[in-house]
């Protein structure tokens, strides 16, 4: 087999693996390819409605643009790019740690540099494809409303995907070199969370400090930002101009993306192999817990709770997710702090954010503790009834949620005791609903399968999301329009009850 043939064969192999992994994520290992594709098309079609509502009014924009419009479009592109970078870091880390074919590849007679170049390209392609998938409804809306010049936005998405992949690979490999494979996975996950949330949060913080609102647009459309922004012919605005159909800017962006990816391939494809070997070796070495301590006394449920807390504390996913939730809570907390001075009506906005975060976090924690049991036989053969086991695990979820959100609610209590009480109640109900849904739909799995937890039941995934949104809305409405809050609460309770009705654990 010639070198070119071998490479094209390996590229096909990589794409097939990427496709099957994605399909497994969508279908939960079940052979429902057609249903997954139909579902995806339906979802993409449905996404056109919110896309129309969000950016439909911008379809008429034409070049040349004023500074304010350039700032808004550039910030939107930067936000999308930061999300893509976050996703790319997560994907690259996963490739390093999760690929089981490294031994086969490295023992083959093919040139490793070439093979890993293909793997880098496949990562970039997968990230770009995912970005295109989610951006298509938005670009469609702009094309339908404003004409084919908006088709250039697809090119910008491709350039963003290529550059995000290149930066993610460079960051991950540098992390490997700087802090070693043992810490890279953990740090990369935190970095991905911070990058993904950081941009939005930074804008919100700026908005709160300057204007006392959570709206990001307040900062972007302000005269102050426009005054400090570069002139309209500056290179910074080229991505915005490329989106609007400036072919010169688009060509430059695409070229830049390709050069970045090519550069990363040239620089790092040789080191990719070393990094992969280090990552694989990390899997065979263990971290030491240096502390020598005595066995602790306690009841059986206490032993179970202690184990769950220890595992949660040592779970890198959970740490990064909790960090992300906490980061999202920074703007409302800041708003809360500012509202002490001037009793702003915007304070009410804090409640739904907190309640939503509590519900989402509780769902993840509940999956990890209830479904993600790595030694099910041990727990099942222990002299402890199944109900006591479940009760101990639920207690862990609720204690963790209480520990995370209690300080925020307590602070809120100083500003508005009523709002604090409603928020606390909604946190409890939201966390309990998410936990109950996980309990009704629990399927025994390993903790490492967390990323695919949604594939075990789509109904549970949607129910958990809608329940969090529902209780968040209920809490906000109870503060603003109490009657509407009661109605919203009844609807959400009905939704949770309906979920129970359809759950496999009913009765």
């Amino acid at each position, binding site marked *: 087999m010639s070198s070119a043939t071998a490479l094209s064969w390996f590229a096909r192999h990589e794409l097939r693996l990427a496709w099957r992994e994605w399909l497994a994520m969508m279908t939960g290992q079940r052979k429902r390819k057609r249903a997954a594709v139909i579902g995806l098309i339906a979802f993409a079609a449905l996404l056109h409605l919110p896309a129309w509502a969000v950016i439909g009014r911008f379809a008429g924009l034409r070049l040349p643009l004023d500074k304010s419009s350039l700032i808004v479009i550039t910030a939107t592109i930067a936000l999308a790019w930061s999300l893509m970078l976050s996703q790319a870091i997560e994907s690259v880390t996963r490739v390093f740690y999760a690929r089981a074919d490294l031994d086969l590849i490295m023992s083959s007679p093919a040139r490793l540099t070439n093979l890993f170049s293909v793997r880098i390209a496949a990562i970039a392609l997968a990230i770009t494809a995912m970005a295109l998938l989610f951006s298509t409804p938005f670009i469609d809306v702009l094309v339908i409303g404003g004409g084919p010049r908006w088709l250039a936005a697809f090119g910008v998405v491709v350039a963003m995907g290529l550059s995000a992949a290149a930066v993610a690979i460079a960051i991950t490999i540098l992390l490997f070199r700087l802090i070693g494979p043992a810490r890279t996975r953990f740090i990369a996950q935190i970095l991905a969370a911070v990058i993904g949330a950081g941009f939005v949060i930074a804008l919100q913080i700026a908005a709160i400090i300057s204007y006392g609102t959570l709206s990001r647009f307040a900062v972007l459309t302000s005269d102050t930002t426009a005054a400090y922004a570069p002139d309209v012919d500056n290179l910074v605005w080229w991505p915005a101009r490329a989106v609007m159909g400036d072919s010169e800017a688009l060509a430059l962006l695409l070229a830049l993306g390709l050069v970045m990816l090519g550069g990363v391939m040239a620089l790092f494809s040789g080191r990719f192999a070393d990094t992969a070997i280090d990552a694989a070796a990390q899997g065979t070495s263990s971290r*030491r817990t240096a502390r020598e301590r005595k066995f602790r006394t306690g*009841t059986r449920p206490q*032993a*179970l709770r202690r184990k769950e807390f220890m*595992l949660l504390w040592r779970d890198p996913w959970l740490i990064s997710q909790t960090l992300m939730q906490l980061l999202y809570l920074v703007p409302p907390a800041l708003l809360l702090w500012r509202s002490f001075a001037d009793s702003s009506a915007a304070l009410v906005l804090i409640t739904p954010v907190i309640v939503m975060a509590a519900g989402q976090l509780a769902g993840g924690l509940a999956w990890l503790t209830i479904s993600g049991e790595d*030694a099910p036989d*041990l727990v099942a*053969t222990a002299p402890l009834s199944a109900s006591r086991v479940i009760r101990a695990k639920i207690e862990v979820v609720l204690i963790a949620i209480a520990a995370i959100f209690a300080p925020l609610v307590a602070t809120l209590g100083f500003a508005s005791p009523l709002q604090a009480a409603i928020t606390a109640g909604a946190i409890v109900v939201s966390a309990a609903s998410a936990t109950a849904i996980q309990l009704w739909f629990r399927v025994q799995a390993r*903790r490492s399968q967390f990323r695919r937890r949604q594939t075990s039941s789509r109904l549970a995934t949607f129910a958990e999301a809608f329940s969090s949104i529902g209780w968040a809305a209920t809490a906000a409405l109870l503060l603003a329009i109490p009657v509407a809050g009661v109605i919203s609460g009844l609807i959400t309770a009905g939704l949770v009850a309906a979920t129970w009705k359809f759950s496999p654990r009913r009765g």
Partner: protein
Amino acid sequence: MPKHLQIKVASDAKPYGVAVMKPDSSALSVRGLTKSFDRLAVNSLDLTIHAGEFYALVGPNGAGKTTTLRMVAGLLRPDAGAVSIFGVDALADPVAAKQVMAWVSDEPMIYDKLTPLEYLEFVAGLWGIAPAVSEPSAQELLGSLGLAPHRHERCEGFSKGMRQKVALAGALVHAPRLIILDEPLTGLDAVSARHVKGLLAERVRAGCTVIMTTHILEVAERMADRIGVIAAGSLVAEGTLAELRQQNGHTDTSLEDLFIALVTLEAAAA
């Protein structure tokens, strides 16, 4: 009673071992045990294992060995039949039955993010064993299984053999009276396998009852007091090696030859 079999149960634990048990010489008694999945996996099985006995359950793949043991351990609910452990009805009072037994599967299920010592602390806590008893016992077990240098390392990097040894230590740390093992030697190197066999033999000498499935017939031949041969969900032969030979008209045959003869006969009859 030997020192390592004396269990000091924590204050919250019910004294199952004292209050519930009836005088009975059998450690395990199974009557009419039946389980079907797509097909009949275990067919009205009767089995009695005496206290202090080492019993090996052998049989071809899919014969129903693991299903039988999982039902005994309370991991599977039988369709019909009764399981009694030291006189306790394991189906009616599973918690009391579980207090005195331990289960080790062929696939070691332990927590990657815990160290072996933390794992043993957790297991001892689940069984309600007082730390004053469980901690020295845990240290001793890790030492005898060659895991002492790794006791503060998280299990995530352990080989299958090391994981199996951690799981086995977990099964022994609460000093069970009945140990149920499903292919416990899978993945162990020769030295580790010898360690494990020595540890099990020592427990049996101390009065503990062991029931084990194995594909390694030499182990059954050397270690077991009695051997049960299971095929198509039924016990087709049972006894000491000498009794099995006698039952089949052989005087100087290895267990392997006997096993093949029995299983082939059973397959032909089916």
